[in-house]
């Protein structure tokens, strides 16, 4: 873990020494519901940042806003110091920020290897006119294919190379989606619940892959519910509740944070009931009162 986060105070919205992504005053409402209302958040380069929070905290919406799959009502964001508010999702991907989805989007009627090759950036053969003249892109295609085969081996999917992606299991699809995202050599990868629906044996290998990404210098942001996973791999944890960032810090401090405990368990979960409250709850629950 890079040491420079150790000097950062554990406060929501705190500036980081080397931020790759920054968000300011980002707000998104759906009708009367404020889904996301983040005053300030910076993501440190080269570390694994976990985004956690109870259901409905706005994590996925925030992800969508970050990757331009949804447009905020207001707010601004920067990537590598450049403003990216007006960028379309595909432009962000080309700049080096790729994402995966909570519900995996494997391209079912493409083979696994074609799924992988699609991920590569700046393909000459993706131009209509050039695509008609194979010699213009053959060499690049072979190079992409070699890279795809390497990644498939790393993710233990090489035996499925020629199968349609639709025949993969749920866990294998998660692996494929992550591997495919890596084909674009991203600098930031945003994983939306990468472990959801993956069996425990596969979870372990997925975790190793995610740690491997950090070791290669890729910044990882991921949404996760499983606290064991968060504890295992995250360098920094951002906690959201009701659309806001309520806490930040390494996972050791998060568990003890009062705001986080309140968000997950309710503000007065451990306070003793007063005599009046106890009497009220008892009478509510008693079937004898009604008859």
């Amino acid at each position, binding site marked *: 873990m890079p040491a420079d986060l150790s000097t950062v105070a554990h406060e929501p919205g705190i500036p980081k020494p080397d931020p790759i992504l920054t968000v300011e005053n980002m707000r998104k409402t759906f009708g009367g519901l404020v889904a996301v209302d983040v005053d300030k958040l910076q993501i440190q380069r080269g570390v694994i940042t976990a985004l956690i929070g109870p259901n409905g905290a706005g994590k996925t919406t925030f992800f969508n806003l970050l990757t331009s799959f949804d447009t905020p009502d207001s707010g601004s964001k920067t990537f590598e110091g450049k403003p990216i508010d007006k960028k379309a999702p595909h432009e962000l991907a080309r700049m080096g920020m790729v994402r995966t989805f909570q519900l995996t989007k494997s391209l079912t009627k493409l083979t696994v290897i074609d799924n992988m090759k699609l991920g590569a950036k700046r393909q000459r053969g*993706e131009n209509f006119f050039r695509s008609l003249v194979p010699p213009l892109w053959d060499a690049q295609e072979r190079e992409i294919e070699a890279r795809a085969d390497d990644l498939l081996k790393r993710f233990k999917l090489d035996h499925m190379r020629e199968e349609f992606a639709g025949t993969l299991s749920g866990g294998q699809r998660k692996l494929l989606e992550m591997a495919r995202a890596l084909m674009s050599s991203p600098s930031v990868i945003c994983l939306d619940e990468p472990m959801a629906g993956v069996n425990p044996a596969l979870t372990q290998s997925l975790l190793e892959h995610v740690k491997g990404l950090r070791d290669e210098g890729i910044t990882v942001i991921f949404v996760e519910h499983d606290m064991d996973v968060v504890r295992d791999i995250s360098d920094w944890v951002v906690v959201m509740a009701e659309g806001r960032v309520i806490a930040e810090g390494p996972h050791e401090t998060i568990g003890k944070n009062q705001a986080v405990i309140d968000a997950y368990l309710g503000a007065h979960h451990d306070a003793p009931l007063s005599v009046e409250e106890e009497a009220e709850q008892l009478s509510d629950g008693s079937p004898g009162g009604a008859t």
Partner: protein
Amino acid sequence: MTVPILAAIDWAQIVQLTVSSAIGVEAMVFAMAAIGLNIHFGYTGLLNFGHVGFMAMGGYGVGIAIVTWQLNPYLAILIGVVFALVLALILGVPTLRLRADYLAIVTIAASEVIRIMARSTTLRGLTRGAEGLNEFAGEYYSLSPFKQNLYEWGPFFFTGNNLFIVIIGWILVILLAVMVWQLMRSPWGRVLKAIREDEDAARALGKNAYWYKMQSLMLGGAIGGMAGMLQVIAKSTVQPDTFVPVITFFIWTVLILGGVGRVWSPIVGSMIFWGLLALMENLLRQFVAEGWIPPSLMDSNQVGIFRFILVGLGLIALMTFRPQGIFGSREEMALDAR
């Protein structure tokens, strides 16, 4: 009972009419149009229910350029393509950012708008209204090496002009099919297929889904326009009411029959579709003429309509027993259900 019936039928004539129909002008035009629709729906997943609109644009492009604007007939072909491309742009700009069903609604409406505008009195100066633009294809046929009036091979015969347009047309169809084959095995085609499977996934991987869908709409539209051009050149007339919505659904039938998203399916699908129609029509006609189908049940005027009922039944059977069409793969189809 059945044997004397079959013996009394003029099989030579039926085979001749069926085969002529399977390789005739209509089969060729629909094969080409279906190649365009296959690019839209089979490879990109665009729901285009107004393909006949592209054919109309191509046909009217040629007709207007030659008759109304008095332009060179070769320039006219270019103008026909440009007309179809313009339609693709007009349809694509507002709808391709939206969900797939919006394109379906807009295309079916647009194809009718084009037909009704073409026959309106307001545009009479341009399109000559309901009577259409006539007798403009002579220049093309002057290129034809087939100067005789009639060419015969055994039971088969074509007029010289017909033979010319059919040969040119089928050569073009084959060339276009080869082009589609090459496109769809290239990275460009891979992006189209990715968009068909999941547009957001393609976007997340840095592909400009909107622009690729636009390219697909334009390419398939231009090919549809070429099909329309061949049709009007074959008849040497452009009339608005040849471009009715049912044409679009014949093209869909041809495509589904052959198998969606397969290179050769538009060609084989079209030949089977038109061959079967001719076969059934002539078989039924002979049955009626011989009195095996009593006049109280059906007379010869109803044969033409009844064969479409049979085509419908045939399609239902196809969807039940072979939903992937002739060339499709059942395994691939089953992936959608997972």
